């Protein structure tokens, strides 16, 4: 299998977009899905419950020092940056906000790019800031695959636009087409 992990970033409009994405993923998907969604709230338990109702895969909060599990959706905890360590396990930091956000998509994408290299898929969905663009660039520089939600299809087009401008993409697609695309890319 060419790809071993999927990282996803979203902001404004992200809860709805994630619901659609996760509902469309194949239950037999073999890669871990790792998500940063800016919410600004104190914890992600509510988000987790909402997404778990729609998702075809189990949804959990990422725990530090544990490795991502295949076929599981991991959400970044509120208030912490989520990183992939050199050993492939999750790590947390409370370093300064990036693009006004903690967790920041750039921080996850950057560290995941360093670990997974060409075996990583990065996905930027709807959002009203520029977080994720530099991270997606790092993924492409290490030959990973970049997917960006088509800006005209996004509730908030700024984040996809910034990603396309700064990183470019291998695929630009409407939200409803993204899950089928990922299922295809990740089928054994």
């Amino acid at each position, binding site marked *: 299998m060419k790809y071993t992990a999927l990282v996803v970033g979203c902001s404004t409009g992200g809860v709805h977009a994630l619901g659609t994405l996760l509902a469309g993923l194949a239950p037999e998907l073999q890669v871990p899905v790792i998500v940063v969604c800016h919410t600004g709230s104190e914890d992600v338990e509510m988000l987790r419950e909402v997404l778990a109702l729609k998702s075809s895969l189990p949804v959990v909060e990422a725990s530090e020092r544990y490795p991502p599990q295949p076929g599981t959706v991991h959400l970044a905890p509120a208030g912490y940056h989520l*990183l992939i360590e050199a050993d492939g396990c999750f790590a947390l*930091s409370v*370093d300064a906000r990036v693009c006004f956000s903690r967790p920041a998509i750039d921080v996850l994408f950057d560290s995941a790019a*360093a670990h997974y290299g060409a075996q990583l898929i990065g996905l930027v969905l709807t959002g009203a800031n520029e977080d994720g663009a530099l991270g997606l660039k790092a993924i492409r520089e290490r030959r990973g695959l970049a997917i960006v939600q088509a800006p005209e299809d996004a509730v908030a087009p700024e984040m996809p636009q910034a990603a396309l401008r700064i990183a470019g993409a291998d695929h630009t697609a409407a939200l409803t087409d993204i899950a089928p695309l990922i299922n295809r890319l990740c089928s054994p």
Partner: protein
Amino acid sequence: MSDNGQGTGLRPEAEDIELEAFVRALKQRHGYDFSGYARASLKRRMLQVVQSCGFENLSTLTGRMLRDDALVPDIVAGLSVPVSEMFRNPTVFAALREEVLPVLASYPRINIWQAGCAHGEEVYSLAILLEEAGLYERSQIYATDFSDAALVRAQEGIFPIKDARAYSENYLAAGGQRTLADYYHARYERIKLDERLKRNIHFANHNLAADGVFCEAHLILCRNVLIYFANSLQNQVLGLFRDSLVRGGFLCLGNRESLDFAPAARAFTAVNASARIYRLAARA
């Protein structure tokens, strides 16, 4: 393989090799040991230091650092992450107030060690908590950090006024009995905490990765510091905490820290798992 391995884990990135060389140089030449730190966040911070100090890359910074001692404080300050809040995660302070202070109240003299005190946000929060519980007079708080720059700031007890509202909300959510403004003076763009809050606080430099037992403590607060340590250093520092606590002493860690890979954690039992408050089992 025909692929030259770029990004597939076969060939290490230049930055990763530079980072290891830097860590070795800093340790051998200046005695600061970051070898036990988790690499992903260490790398991110070091690349920021490279940028903010105007170096071309990490190798040029390392070369300069080997010969120029003056660079070291900036590097340590850049690697330290003095990002905090007063009463961060209010429910934890509420739990300390309700579940830990009543036990500490049975001691005639209370020693508290706050490790990794950043700019002092947490140690002043603790002082207020003790004050309101009527325990401050018999408490001594040792606030330590390995960054001298952070300690200087912590001693000043001055924070941007733009943060005061969030701190006040946290204070009330933590069950504060008055209003936070009772404890500070606002001036221009800043707030300065009441000097009296400092009367039983002792600030000191202590490096968790290198220094030994600091005091005999009834409570150790070390939140969001061990997240920066790889498993083996995390375990080592938990051993240090175990050895620094009195029997039945309390340990409070950050809200999302995991002890599952640290054998030394077996000495502790959870008092309030979601607030990450533990107690040292009484030795037989």
